[in-house]
């Protein structure tokens, strides 16, 4: 049963890659709407995998993944892609901008690669407005290789938020940034999430940033929640702030 006001609701989640080796289980995890959540833990425990499961990029072997009230695991591939582009905004550590597109076209990219979104003048205006808000409005005609790291990440954030997602999933968004830029990018991300009441789930290794989050999900406490004897799977412990 879905928990009240949870935008993400995971139940008895069991996932393993086909190649084997890695496996994790999450007995139960809910993320409240409009919250800012940090996911921490050592490399390789499944933080990015968790984001991919929430986004519908990966499908669990068993269990429930309900996001925005939609049973993501039950959707087919095309429906999951449409769900993702409409409800989920993804921000990447490596920015993942296309070098051959201008800043504006990178921001508009979701509208060009999915029939679920329709590109029109209003969207273009919104893209320019968001770019202005994030301080890159004067760089829309440039290509990513002419931008600083911080500017690139802000382009990535613009691209993620343009369709108006319900949840932003950020995978180490400040991992490649210097301390000053890191703060500005996080300020941008938090300010946008707060203003638009968007849920923010961020994977991070930077414990100095944790104070800024409402809640921390720690993957390090393996087995605390659900791993049974003999299991090789991981399950996160969580703490609310």
């Amino acid at each position, binding site marked *: 049963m879905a928990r009240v006001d949870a935008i993400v609701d995971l139940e008895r989640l069991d996932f393993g890659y086909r190649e084997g080796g890695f496996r994790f289980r999450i007995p139960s995890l809910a993320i409240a709407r409009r919250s800012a959540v940090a996911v921490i833990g050592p490399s390789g425990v499944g933080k990015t995998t968790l984001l991919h499961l929430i986004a519908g990029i990966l499908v669990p072997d068993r269990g429930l993944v309900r996001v925005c009230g939609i049973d993501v695991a039950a959707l087919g591939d095309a429906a999951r892609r449409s769900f993702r582009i409409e409800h989920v905004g993804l921000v*990447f550590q490596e920015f993942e901008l296309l070098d*051959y597109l201008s800043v504006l076209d990178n921001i508009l990219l979701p509208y060009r*690669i*999915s029939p679920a979104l329709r590109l029109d003048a209003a969207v273009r205006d919104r893209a320019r407005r968001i770019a202005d808000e994030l301080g890159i409005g004067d760089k829309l005609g440039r290509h990513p290789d002419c931008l600083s790291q911080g500017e690139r990440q802000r382009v990535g954030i613009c691209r993620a938020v343009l369709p108006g997602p319900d949840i932003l999933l950020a995978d180490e968004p400040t991992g490649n940034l210097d301390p000053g830029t890191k703060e500005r990018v996080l300020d941008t991300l938090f300010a946008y999430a707060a203003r638009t009441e968007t849920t923010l789930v961020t994977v991070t290794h930077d414990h100095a940033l944790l104070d800024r989050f409402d809640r921390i999900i720690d993957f390090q406490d393996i087995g605390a929640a659900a791993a049974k004897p003999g299991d090789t799977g991981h399950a996160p412990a969580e703490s609310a702030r």
Partner: protein
Amino acid sequence: MRHALFLAWCYLRFHRVKTVILIAAVTLVLYVPIGLRVLVSQSARALTARADATPLVIGTRGSPLELVLDTLYFGANEPAPMRFAEVTRVASSGLAEAIPIYTRFRAGSHPIVGTSLDYFGFRRIEVAAGRQLATLGECVLGANVAATTGLGPGDYVVSSPESVFDLAGAYPLRMAVVGVLARSASPDDDVIFADLKTAWVMAGMGHGHQDLTAPQAANLILERTERTVTANATVVEYNEITAENAASFHFHGDLAAYPVSAAIVVPPDQKASALLRGRYEADDETVLVVRPSTVMSSLLDTVLTVEQYVLAGAALVGVATLGIATLVFGLSLRLRRRERETLVRIGGSRARVATVMAAEIVGVLAVSALATAVLTMLTSAYGATMVRAWIRS
């Protein structure tokens, strides 16, 4: 689809050097065999048509191919000259008409063809502007010569000197352009026609100069006998034939010994043709009679054989180039794997992502096909002209 095409266009534009190289390589692979085929077939058609329309050619014994190329296509390699007596010999045989062709001179890059008026009737060439040749010192221009030089009736053409160091050689002759011929899509469009005697004037065999019998020329005379007058070097020799000085032009020596390059022989029927050819088969005969259709057919057989080799070579190069292009496309797709994954992670539809990736290949192939089509059309339009220019050069 338009979004996928837009993204593909952005990709190709951003990687423009790679794109241009790929398009050039694929275009060449496609164009070389197709263009060669079109060029050979068009040239063969044009060459064969003119050869078939020319029954026989006579010229000094030597290379039949050079004789035909010079007489029909006005090539640069003029055969050894033949005596004009051979032209009158054919005519007096009663077996055929003979049309003299003398191609020794040029005006710039255009050959000057000295011939008789019969040539224009034989080739069915009409005058499009001005009038036909009438007197010594006049010329008519082929359609392409008129178009490229901008000359027309009322203008003048000067023949090129053969050698600036040959003081005793042929001097340039300034000829009045009296007409422009109608376009015939043949080598006749690319030459300047003059009367045979005008060409002989260029060769220095006929000339005009001050009247040495006039009283005012008395101080120019070195020696006067019953038959000859010898003057000093200050006698004015004319380099243009005008109405005023035309009467002073005259030819020295026996016209029968004057040179022509060749003659087109037009027998009325096969029998006359066979009889005429029989007369020139003696071993001590200095003149050669050839059927242009036979000579060109032999040349085209050689060309077709060469074409087969070239096509085989082009096919091998094509396979290698397409292999490399496939490798480049494959590597490009591998390099774009991360981009593909990003598009999938963002939520790109399977069809759009595949289209974006494929559009690079399709775009390059489409532009290459378009470029090949354009090049093939240009070859088709100008191929025969190019071959004619190549033969003339």
